[in-house]
């Protein structure tokens, strides 16, 4: 019984981590229709920055949360630069977008290898969240439970941003009809830079939040990017809360699938992804077909 309880709880928490991982990609893909294949590398970059800040840089040891925010800001700035210089030139050109984002991912991955070396970096769980929570017969790590809380906060925050603020309305207008939006006086290109930066920052934030569980190592980007894609496809694009619940469902599929169908461990995520693409291409909660 405790076996199923562990799996259930972990499904929810893993779903939270998946949401954090994919939120950045979902934002950029959903709003700007750019498949940002650099996403995995930005996740890893954020994790490396965060690990360095937590581990101590120039004598300063940063608090975990500050390190996470700092890493997110740094990578968001980097994302803004990327958007301005590179992606801006390529609206509606998927091949060029694929080429440039993949090329960038090679560069970022090799850069990380050059700077931080080949050994994995371990990030300690923040002191405030060390320990266990008793759930009946079993003890579940507190940090993992906290992740679901963080994911919920991020999801609500993003939803509020896009649905309830003026800037969110401007972003949505800019996405629906950039030319009309410009006519009305909305600075569309600046907004796009902001959205991309936000997406990049979210990826980096997810990287460092996930680091106490995943650790940071070369190849993290290649391991995480397919997961982000699976979540965005199965969960669907265009709806943030749908994306959130989609992530949780995938958390369940992953945990129960790996545990109960070990023969299908490799396919436990890509088979559902394929089925969704074939039969419900907008995803479980999506608002448009990619």
């Amino acid at each position, binding site marked *: 019984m405790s*076996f199923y309880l*562990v*799996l259930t709880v*972990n499904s929810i928490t*893993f779903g939270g*981590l998946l949401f954090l991982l994919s939120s950045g990609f979902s934002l950029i893909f959903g709003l700007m229709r750019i498949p940002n294949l650099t996403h995995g590398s930005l996740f890893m970059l954020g994790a490396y920055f965060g690990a360095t800040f937590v581990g101590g840089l120039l004598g300063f040891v940063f608090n975990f949360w500050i390190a996470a925010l700092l890493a997110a800001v740094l990578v968001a700035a980097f994302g803004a630069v990327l958007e301005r210089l590179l992606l801006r030139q390529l609206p509606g050109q998927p091949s060029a977008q694929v080429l440039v984002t993949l090329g960038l991912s090679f560069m970022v991955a*090799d850069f990380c*290898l050059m700077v931080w*070396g*080949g*050994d*994995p*970096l*371990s990030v*300690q*769980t923040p002191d405030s969240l060390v320990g*266990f929570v008793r759930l009946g017969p*079993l*003890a*579940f*790590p507190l*940090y*993992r439970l906290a992740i679901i809380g963080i994911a919920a906060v991020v999801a609500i925050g993003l939803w509020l941003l896009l649905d309830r603020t003026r800037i969110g309305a401007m972003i949505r207008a800019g996405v629906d009809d950039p030319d009309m939006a410009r006519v009305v006086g909305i600075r569309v290109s600046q907004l796009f830079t902001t959205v991309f930066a936000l997406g990049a920052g979210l990826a980096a934030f997810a990287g460092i939040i996930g680091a*106490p*569980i*995943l*650790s940071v*190592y*070369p*190849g993290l980007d*290649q*391991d*995480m990017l397919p*997961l982000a894609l699976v979540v965005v496809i199965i969960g669907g694009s265009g709806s943030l809360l749908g994306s959130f619940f989609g992530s949780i469902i995938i958390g369940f599929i*992953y*945990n*129960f699938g*790996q*545990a109960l169908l*070990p023969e299908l*461990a*490799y396919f436990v995520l890509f088979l559902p992804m394929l089925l969704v693409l074939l039969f419900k291409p907008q995803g479980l909660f999506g608002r448009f077909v990619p």
Partner: protein
Amino acid sequence: MSRKITRRKVLAGTAAGAALATFKFPAPAIAQAAPFKLGLLTVKTGPLAQGGIQMEQGIVTYLKEKNYKFAGRKVEFISADTGGNPAGAKTKAQELIERDNVDTIVGPLAAFELLAITDYVRQHETPLLSLAAAEDVTQRHVNPFVVRPSATSAQCMHPLGDYAAKELKYKTAITISEDFAFGYEQIAGFQRVFHDDGGKVVKKLWPPLVTPDYTPYIAQISDVDCCVNGFAGSNPVKFMKAYQAMGMKSKIPLLAGWTAMDDALLHSLGDEAIGVKSAHWYSADFESESNKRFVADMQKSYNVLPGGYSAGMYIAGMCIDAALEKSGGKAASKKAFAEELHKVSLKDSPRGPFHFDQYGNVVGTVFIRNCERKNGKLVNTVIKTYPNVSQFWTYDPKKFLSQPVYSRDYPPLKP
């Protein structure tokens, strides 16, 4: 500026040409003065770079110690990055053999890389000292040019099974390792000896190579005396953290193979590694003369504690050096040199005394270590040594080889 060909110019040109013609290049008879070309097949980019970078550090440390001279002969070192995939390994092997004409190759890192190049290396009769396991290259499909100074996948796990059953008195175990050949072979080795000594492996778990979260697997570990893991790369870090996070560490002790608790990995680990016992063919705290030198050099040059990847290549360097000494620095034919390598037997090395069996695999010490914290740093302290361990443990080689290859399902679980 005159372009005319004046007589003066013709005379000057002829004189220059004549002078050049008198320039004698060293006669080929002084073949021994030709440098010994040593090629390294390693991985410096991509996810496997972790071990690959250490491999290069290990061999370079030995070369520096010897001032790039083996048996009085200058050594020219060429490092090649395979990218960690078999096609890359083949291309780089070709580069080393066809373009650079190396005399010997050390490496590669991964088993599938070795399998991709073993035929090629044999065709071109180039001696190779491997780090990669790929058991069959020294078992059922022996390559006479390959010598392995590190270990086969199961070589350290046989004694671990013995230790678990006889010394730790464990009766039941659950194993977990990545779903690939290196994982299967390690676990099979443990399982076989553990069974023979009265233990029982209850369940074998095989998470895919890329598993972001090990919790669904850890949740299946219960009601046993120990859990044996054979993870490699950076997966041990993820696994042990999750294992401790789920509260398992205090309930079911962990045993590990060499890649999971390699000394070079310790600085990436934390408290989750304390108390984990592992079996390795090298240990940084082993007190031999050469090891003390090796560890000190590695710390000075790279500020790292060496592990199996660098030790394996350092020891490979020692073997080449010893073989060259024996053959007077000549390495006349590659075939003869390969045979000489098979005969190398060293008393003092970072892993202790060793020699090679008739199949080309090392017979040497296996250390059982316990991880503890000393002076604030994690170290693996040797708690037992098994001397003269071969790839066949105590089994008869012929019988061993007549049985099926170690795989996911062989040996089968006890009912």
